[in-house]
Structure formats: structure tokens, C-alpha cells
């Protein structure tokens, strides 16, 4: 924390939740980019 106090357990969990949510979003984004990329490189 900016004020030097350690995070409470609840704050730590909130941060962990946010981090997991952002990771899931990133994985989804990567998946979608990969999908559209592969679709735009079809043969024929």
C-alpha cells in the first residue's frame, strides 16, 4: 500500500481476484486473436 500499511486479508483477496479476472480476460483475448488469425490464413 502507498501508505506503508500491509494489506488486510480482504484486500489481498480482492487483489488476487482482480488479477485472476484480468488473466482470464487476457487468455480469452489471446484465444480470440488466435482464432481470427487462423481463420484469416485459410488455404484456397
Amino acid at each position: 500500500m502507498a501508505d506503508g500499511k500491509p494489506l488486510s486479508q480482504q484486500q489481498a483477496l480482492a487483489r488476487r481476484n482482480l488479477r485472476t479476472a484480468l488473466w482470464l480476460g487476457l487468455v480469452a483475448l489471446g484465444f480470440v486473436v488466435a482464432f481470427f488469425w487462423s481463420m484469416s490464413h485459410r488455404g484456397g
Partner: protein
Amino acid sequence: MAHDHAHDGHDHGHDDHAHHGPDKGIMRWIKTTNHKDLGTLYLWFSAIMFTIGGLMSLAIRAELWQPGLQYFDPELFNQFTTMHALVMIFGGVMPGFVGLANWMVPMMIGCSDLALPRVNNWGFWILPFAFALLLSTFFLPGGAPAGGWTIYPPLVLQTGNSFPLLIFAIHLMGISSITGAINVAVTILNMRAPGMTLLKMPLFAWSWLITAYLLIAVMPVLAGAVTMLLTDKYFGTSFFNAAGGGDPVMFEHIFWFFGHPEVYILILPSFGIISTIIPTFARKPLFGYASMVYAMASIAFLSFIVWAHHMFTVGIPLAGELFFMFSTMLIAVPTGVKVFNWVATMWQGSMTYETPMLFAVAFVFLFSIGGFSGLMLALAPVDFQYHNTYFVVAHFHYVLVPGAVFGIIAGVYYWIPKWTGVMYNETLGKIHFWWSAVWINVTFFPQHFVGLAGMPRRIPDYAVQFTDFNQISTVGAFLFFIGQFLFFYNILRCALARKGLKPAPARVWEGAYGLEWTVPSPAPYHTFEDPPEITDAETPWAAH
């Protein structure tokens, strides 16, 4: 976040904030971040959308009462079929499942709320705006979208003023689904009570974890697809325009890459509900818990590699037809595992048939009918006959109505005593079940026959030889719809007029196990502020 931090400061002083109840009046519902309140909102939203979508289906069935045009011109008929599907899928079934997840997942895994409660509020309140936009298109010049819920170009690009509203509404629904899915996944991954390992979780939580991953993966694909439609129509791009070097078949690939996992998004939570209900009323632990988890995960994986079975007749290479045919048939294996396990759970159980169990048993039987017709449709050569006929309509209504919708109804009957603290009327529930089970088959079974005989879907008129079966179907649809008011009455009485109803104990059903049955009925506004202890007795389904 500042608000949460302010609360955190109180933790070691006085913790009265943990015990205050909900706000009063309408603001409670607008501002709420409580998973139980939002669960209730989702479920009421779903009920309203089922009613609106149901009324559209009655309009469709009325028009199909006899050949020729009765009540609606073909353009309006097509608007009804398109909007019926969009409203039922995105407004009825999906929010219904999210409502059940909101209510039950935190209580099942022993945490106090979803991981991201404000995101949860936002995710819900997007939906009324999305559907207000979508439904308002009926009043625009040119009417509502009419190109089918699959919004294939180039047909859908002929849509009039309602087109951008449709696209924006789909974007809003997508945002709502993605936020909801991320929320459920984060909750299950991070917030389980100590000792609640993944393979001890109730199957409903498992079904939702898998569903959440499907949603996170495919809703952005739909968003990408509809954005490309938007730019094709208004900004001169040619993604799907052959004249500009694009490919309309590409849209079908992209749409069904979303669409087929979407089909499993619409059924997996029901699998979880049925897997919860059957052991309770068979008074036996679920047969093959781990295999149920692996089967759901397999179904989810396979859902990504079967999409082109929706497009067998569009002209794809033979190797493609074979690949998608065999991968689709492969889904029968994990599905068979699930049906086997449900039956094996009932085998030699001390069965009783309360309303949730009746709906669950009907689910197993009637969903399997939809599964078998799905297997028929998976066969590429014969799909050339079935494609675009009423056989397809019969198939997906068998998996969606006695499948997904019966799952939601079973779950509501099963858990409403926990939510409201009172028992619903069992006699009325049983009448509702038998009424629904009879008329749903009267509605949809004859559609197999007219489909096999060649009646196309999505048309307001038909050849005269299909009249008899269509009339049977129409009678069934109207009677099924009317019967659902028994359900609404039964539920409304529990929710609003609790006086005179039998109070529900904490463990509502004697054969039910799990953390949700260790808290009082009605469940307190805040549950499991302190993590509960996970005992073997409350997780009999898991290997110990």
C-alpha cells in the same frame, strides 16, 4: 474500491456492517452487490423474457395453425422467429442459469459472495437495456431483425433501421455474459472455503466453472463477428462480401465457432442441476462423480471442434464433412457416460418423486430424445435431407425445453424453499409437471414427422399435407404455455405471500447434502462470512 477499503478499516473495530440487511425500496435492487439479490433479479428477468419469448412462439404457432397466411405477413413472421430465438437464448435460458449460479455457487463452495460483486451488479443491469434496445426494434420502420438468430450475411445485411440496434444489443449481452462468466470462474478458483478442493465441489459448481470457460472463450468471437457485419454494412468493408473479395461462408464458420459452444453453455448448467437433484431423491451419492466432471470437460472440449456440422450443406470439402461428422458423434460418448451415471444413481435408490425429481427424471428421458435426434443430424449424408427442416426445430427444442428449461424449473423447485424459507405447494408442482411433460411432447414430437416429410423451418406457410401435425403442435404449445402460470403462481406465493405456507427446515430435503443445506432457510442475507468446515458427511459424492 474506496468504499470497500473503508469497510476493511472497521474489521477489527466493530463489524456491524457485516450484519446489516439490504437497503429499503427500489434502490436495494438497483445498487445491490449481494449475490442473492442479483440471483433473484436474474431469475425474474429470465421469467419475464421467457414470457415474452413464449408469446412470440404462440404467435408463430397460431400462424402455422393452417396453410396460407392467417394473421401475420411473412416479414413479421420472420421477425417473430428471429426474436423468439434471441430472447429465449440470451434473455431466458442464459440469465436463468446465471441467476441460479449467483444464488447457489457461493453457498455451495462456502464463500460470502462472488469475487467481483460490483461487476456482478453491472453485468445484470446491462441486460434490461440490451433487451429494451432489441425489443424496441419491433416499433422501428421496417420492424425487428428478421434474418434468423444466426444473422447470416448477406441476408442479415438487408435488415433495415434495426440492424445497428441488434448489433449493439448483442454486444451488451456479450459484455454481460463475459463479466458474469469471469466472475463465476474467479469465485470458484479463488474463494472456495479451506478444504473445498476442486474434486469435492458440488457438480453444479463444476458445471458452471466449465460453462464460464466456454463463455469467456466464445462470446468475444461473437462480438468480433457482429462487429465485422456492422463494418460490412456501414463502413465499406468486405469481410463477408464476395464482390469485395470476402467470403459469406466465413461468417458461418465464425458464427458457429461461437454457436456450438453456446449450445453447451445452454445445457451444461442443467447437467449440474440434474446431477444435484437425482442423488437427493434417490438417497444415494451420485454415481461416478469424477467421471461426471471429466465428461463435462470432454463435452466442453469437443464443443470447439464440431462447429461445421451446422454447415454440412454449404459445400465444405469431403474431409471436412468427415472430420466434423466423426467429432460430433464423439460427443455421444461423454453424454452417454452422464446419462448412464444418472440412471446408475437411481438404480436401487430409495426413490421419491417430489416435483424437482419429476422434472429431473423427465430431463434424463426427454433430453436423451433430443440427443438421439442430434446424433441423426450429425450424419453428414442424411443431414442433407434434415437440414433446414422442422426436424432440426424438433431436435433443438427437445434439448432446450425439456433439457435446459426443465433444468431451470427443477432447480427453482429444488432451491426455492432455501431461498424463501417456505415450501412450495407440492400438489400444484406435480400438476405443473404432468401438464408440462404431456404438452411439451405434443408440441414438439410431431415436428419430427413434418420435418422428415420435408416441411422447411422459418416459413409462415406450408404444404397442405402437413396441416394435421401442425395443428397438434399448435394445441400443445398453447396448453404448455398456459400451464406455466401454475409455476409462476406457486413461486410467487413462496416469494411474496409466505403466510400460511409450510416453513422449510435448513435441510429442506432429507437426502440433500452440501454446504447450502447447513445454513437456515431462508438463507441469511450474508452467508459464510467466516469459512465453514468441509466435512466428509457434507460431500458424500467425493472420494475420501
